[in-house]
């Protein structure tokens, strides 16, 4: 079972930390976690991937969906601290531009 830890920082940024594998089943959950945040007015979101041991195309799809829905509201979704496995998938799918990895959760919205 993949768990999702959700927090909001003092500056109103939503931080989502999936723990485990982001495959088909977990991607559906991530999608709804992100949709709930956006619907609740949180338009800047960091997905902290430090504890995400695996991601597949459906997990990527959920992240891209989050990028699009936050940007429509003038915000953004950024990813931080990807594991080696996640980096490999981002490389193979040419997504390191739209999902540029940040080193820290706190600094993910610094630029």
């Amino acid at each position, binding site marked *: 079972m993949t768990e999702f830890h959700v927090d909001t920082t003092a500056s109103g940024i939503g931080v989502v930390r999936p723990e485990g*594998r982001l*495959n*088909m*089943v977990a991607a559906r959950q991530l999608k709804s976690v992100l949709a709930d945040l956006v619907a609740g007015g949180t338009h800047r979101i960091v997905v902290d991937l430090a504890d995400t041991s*695996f991601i*597949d*195309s*459906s997990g*990527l*799809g*959920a992240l*891209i*969906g989050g*990028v*699009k829905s936050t940007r429509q509201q003038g915000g953004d979704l950024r990813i931080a601290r990807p594991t*080696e*496995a996640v980096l*490999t*998938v981002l490389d*193979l*799918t*040419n*997504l390191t*531009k*739209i999902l540029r990895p940040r080193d820290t959760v706190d600094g993910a919205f610094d630029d």
Partner: protein
Amino acid sequence: MTESSTLQALPDRLELSAPASEEMLDLVHVLLEHLWQQHEEVPVAERMRVEMAVIEILANVIEHAFEVDAGRPAADERGDGRRFTITLGVTDAEVLIDLADNGEPAAIDLSRVTMPDEDAESGRGLALALASLTDLSFHSADGRNHWSMRCDLS
């Protein structure tokens, strides 16, 4: 020998036959962990590539291979059950995986698969599997779809 017959002859291959349901994805992740435990010589980069490809292909099988096609009832409605069989093995030179299902014959042309644009929310599965592996092939025969995966050990 073909890759499939090499794989079927490996004395320490792992084989799982199970219903094609989403819960089985986790079980296959665990199966891969056991394969790596048996074969510590497989470098971590190749482990990741194989895991990605296997999970992508299996997720596709679970999602697409049993869609009702042209009015024919899906496999489970015909009563024979939606099932898949996965076989995993490691030779001196490569990781070999076979995946077969009893779903509708799929019309898949791997030579036409491309990576979609960066803002696409789906359609990356087969392209990612192709990019991860040294070789991926597909054929459908005798009411079964067969996927063969190979990842050379560098």
